[in-house]
């Protein structure tokens, strides 16, 4: 009997004990109809080949281990960024259980969101009654300042009209007539979570600036010196938005962070549960129309939103691609400085120097190393640029929700550096494609989300966890990756993994431990 009250064996030790090993071997032998070991090994080896890679890349219909989620997830991400706001997802209720779990597993925080709980009768007759009852219940129970409505694929397939439904619900008294219920259609079968973020954000802008679905006058824009800032669907939103505020405060200008979810996903444990915390206020949102410019940190998360702001409101719009590192931060700050007319303060100049100092100290460990990178389109661009400036060599850059047009942009970046010469870009591909890439054209390290650990297991390539979601490491989202300070965090995460790997490869006594150095 392996278990012991004094030293309790956890699953990882318990099931390796001889009793369990024997039991599981017998199960396999007698009941599982398992594949013969030689055949299994033959196929294992075959999946590592170029032949397999070609078959794998010839897939047209099947997606295996994608690195993207659906629109409604991004809808919720944007919705919780406003003061006192509950995202209300119109459609089947299971979806909302999934989004809440997904965010809680990444942020280690509560994630409040409601569903209109549509079932079979709603599939036949439409979900109007669910909207009417649902809005009334959410309003009365949770007393939100605003309810941000989006949809699941169910509501989209049956064609529910949010604008009409919300109007009817207001007529029926679910919420007061003047109560803010911005909405956006977010079909799961179009785009990905970053599209949903974009749609909901645009919906909220349209609501507050464009006359609240015809119920009030459109705002009149009186340009001022303020700027608006949008982070996009960002796994590091908590750390990043706080870092941006610190930088902007130092520079000393008026700004509004739009969809600021940095507080609601980082509340204290002090005896009180805060369903709402922080967030962009309605007053800020309305005043934001007067800003002279809007800056988006993630182009592909805000394509429609920026177009709306630019074409309908004549604001200057600039966008970046999740900027990480020295050059990307330089460009970002220069642009901010240009727009605001405020110089970059000496304190930030110092921080820049410190990041360059850190790179000078450590880049020898990154220089010439080959990297695979996968993730959302903007993050891939930001990370690739950083690896290039460290002297690393991006080799595979893959994005499930990156388009061929995105790939062209990545190629331009690669062309700008000699370190990008041997890299290929893979839009619309998944992690099973990445598996073939790592087997047939191995790299030293790869950067991705938690699900990359399966690739590390299969191919032996060490994973550096930067992306979304990160479920199996804690609290990294509380650190910024933007700004020079953020670049330093990114550098440290990459270096930590590189050093761990060198140690792991040199730890055998009397064989490799001459290189198990105390100083690196």
């Amino acid at each position, binding site marked *: 009997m392996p278990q012991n009250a004094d030293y309790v*064996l956890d699953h990882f030790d318990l099931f390796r004990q001889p009793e*369990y090993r024997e039991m599981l071997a017998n199960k396999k032998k007698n009941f599982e109809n398992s594949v013969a070991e030689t055949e299994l090994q033959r196929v294992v080896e075959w999946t590592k080949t170029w032949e397999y890679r070609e078959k794998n890349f010839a897939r047209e219909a*099947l997606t295996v281990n994608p690195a993207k989620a659906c629109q409604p997830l991004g809808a919720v991400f944007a919705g919780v960024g406003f003061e006192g706001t509950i995202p209300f997802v119109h459609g089947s209720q299971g979806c909302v259980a999934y989004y809440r779990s997904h965010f809680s597993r990444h942020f280690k925080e509560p994630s409040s969101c409601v569903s209109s709980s549509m079932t079979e009768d709603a599939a036949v007759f439409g979900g109007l009654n669910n909207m009417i009852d*649902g809005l009334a219940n959410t309003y009365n129970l949770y007393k939100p300042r605003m309810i941000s409505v989006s949809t699941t*694929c169910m509501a989209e397939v049956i064609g529910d009209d949010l604008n009409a439904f919300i109007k009817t619900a207001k007529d029926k008294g679910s919420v007061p007539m003047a109560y803010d219920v911005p909405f956006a259609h977010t079909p799961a079968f179009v785009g990905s979570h970053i599209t949903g973020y974009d749609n909901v954000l645009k919906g909220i802008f349209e609501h507050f600036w464009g006359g609240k679905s015809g119920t009030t006058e459109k705002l009149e824009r009186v340009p001022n010196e303020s700027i608006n800032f949008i982070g996009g669907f960002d796994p590091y939103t908590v750390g990043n938005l706080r870092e941006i505020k610190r930088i902007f405060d130092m520079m000393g200008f008026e700004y509004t962070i739009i969809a600021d979810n940095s507080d609601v996903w980082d509340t204290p444990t002090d005896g009180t549960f805060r369903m709402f915390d922080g967030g962009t206020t309605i007053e800020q949102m309305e005043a934001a129309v007067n800003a002279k410019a809007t800056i988006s940190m993630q182009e592909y998360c805000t394509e429609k939103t920026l177009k709306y702001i630019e074409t309908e409101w004549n604001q200057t719009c600039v966008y970046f691609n999740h900027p990480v590192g020295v050059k990307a931060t330089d460009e970002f700050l220069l642009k901010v400085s240009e727009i605001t007319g405020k110089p970059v303060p000496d304190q930030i100049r110092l921080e820049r120097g410190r990041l360059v100092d850190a790179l000078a100290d450590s880049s020898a460990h990154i220089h010439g190393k080959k990297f695979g990178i996968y993730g959302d389109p903007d993050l891939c661009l930001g990370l690739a640029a950083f690896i290039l400036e460290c002297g690393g060599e991006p080799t595979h850059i893959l994005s499930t929700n990156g388009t061929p047009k995105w790939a062209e942009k990545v190629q331009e970046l690669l062309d700008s550096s000699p370190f990008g010469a041997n890299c290929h870009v893979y839009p619309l591909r998944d992690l099973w494609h990445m598996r073939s890439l790592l087997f047939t054209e191995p790299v030293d390290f790869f950067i991705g989300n938690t699900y990359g650990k399966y690739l590390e297991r299969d191919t032996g390539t060490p994973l550096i966890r930067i992306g979304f979601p990160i479920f199996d490491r804690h609290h990294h989202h509380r650190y910024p990756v933007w700004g020079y300070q953020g670049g330093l965090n990114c550098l440290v995460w990459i270096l930590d993994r590189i050093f761990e790997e060198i140690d792991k490869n040199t730890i055998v006594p009397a064989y490799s431990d001459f290189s198990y150095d105390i100083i690196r």
Partner: protein
Amino acid sequence: MSLSAPETIEEIKQRNKELIEETLKAYPEKSKKNRAKHLNQFNTGAKDCSTKSNIKSVPGVMTIRGCAYAGSKGVVWGPIKDMIHISHGPVGCGQYSWAARRNYYIGTTGVDTFVTMQFTSDFQEKDIVFGGDKKLAKIMDEIMEIFPLNHGVTVQSECPIGLIGDDIEAVSKQKSKEYGGKTIVPVRCEGFRGVSQSLGHHIANDSIRDWVFDKMEGKPATFEQSAYDVAIIGDYNIGGDAWSSRILLEEMGLRVVAQWSGDGTIAELEATPKAKLNVLHCYRSMNYISRHMEEKYGVPWVEYNFFGPSKIAESLRTIASHFDDKIKEGAERVIEKYRALSDAVIEKYRPRLHGRKVMLFVGGLRPRHVIGAYEDLGMEVVGTGYEFGHNDDYQRTTHYVKDGTLIYDDVTGFEFEKFVEKIQPDLVGSGIKEKYVFQKMGVPFRQMHSWDYSGPYHGYDGFAIFARDMDMAINSPIWGLTKAPF
């Protein structure tokens, strides 16, 4: 610490009554009436918990429930390790449920086993407009090419499939024929069906009946049969639960021919109608197929509970009662063998946990099944409820709960928060969506779906981990830090 613990049972019942009334006040009239039927308390002697269950959730209240897809793909089918389960529809459902349920298994993932992978048809607008059957057929071809060692495929329908009129049954039949009779199972578990995960369990059970069993009709057993063959039904091997259960059944002399469905295979599903007895842990999710096997193949079934030494011993004896003296002696031998371990666990942890109050809100069998394990440690469950239970679950609950236990069916975020605030339990056991809410409030918490990434909790080996985990949650020094000294 329990701050507001009333002394007598009358006081408790009065408090519960007032608490429910007070909580309901926040709802608009229609929803108040609805929710009132789901909230009550247990009165000794009652035949159930006097609550309504298994009816539609109220919109907009933050139900904790999931959907039929979650019940089929996430619970019943997903753990069958040598089959490929296609999340058929848009990308999200498969993405959010990808490897999240900790159904442990042994295998070479991606080659002969596939549980922790996400296979999806990733529906695009054109698939909605023109239908997804052709894409599904092509997906089957690609699976056979790229994952040649798979032992079958299931099609787990997401919401759009049933709405756009796809014929996944026809595609499945056609492809099964093309691939030499390979098991291909279409499952109509669209998320809008039913009111929770529960209907998904039922639909998945029925799909095993129709697409696995019926194919086996009249074929001889593929394994050597014995008089002691049993199948474990309704154990999803979360953190290895089915393994720490199986070992006990084997030690008492039984032969486990199948695990449903944690670490299970299609061969094991096919073998089950030849078993002598089905032992059923999660009644809610697999009673349907157990009843079917009893009616059609004459395999009796018996419920058991492997949480905590009291219930384990009781269950081993109940299971043994279906067999001869050799097995009955075996049960006694197993109980005796593990007595020292259980006693040591209780001796170590009971003093640290005695008298502590627990509130639960879980799915399946756990809102009742784990009560015995807490009681073995001297703890008391003062409130419990089911995410997707039916009345037969609440009837079974009467065997476990004490007079005055607060009962909440399909609890809403609002209600659960109010109840915990008032009752101030020493521990809440629920899911990931609830975990951080209560921890922020300063209430110790354990996830009772995923075992908070620990486990197993089943069996004697699991009980040691369970006791250690509950102690770790309640007696963590961090709970003394939540109030700033300034």
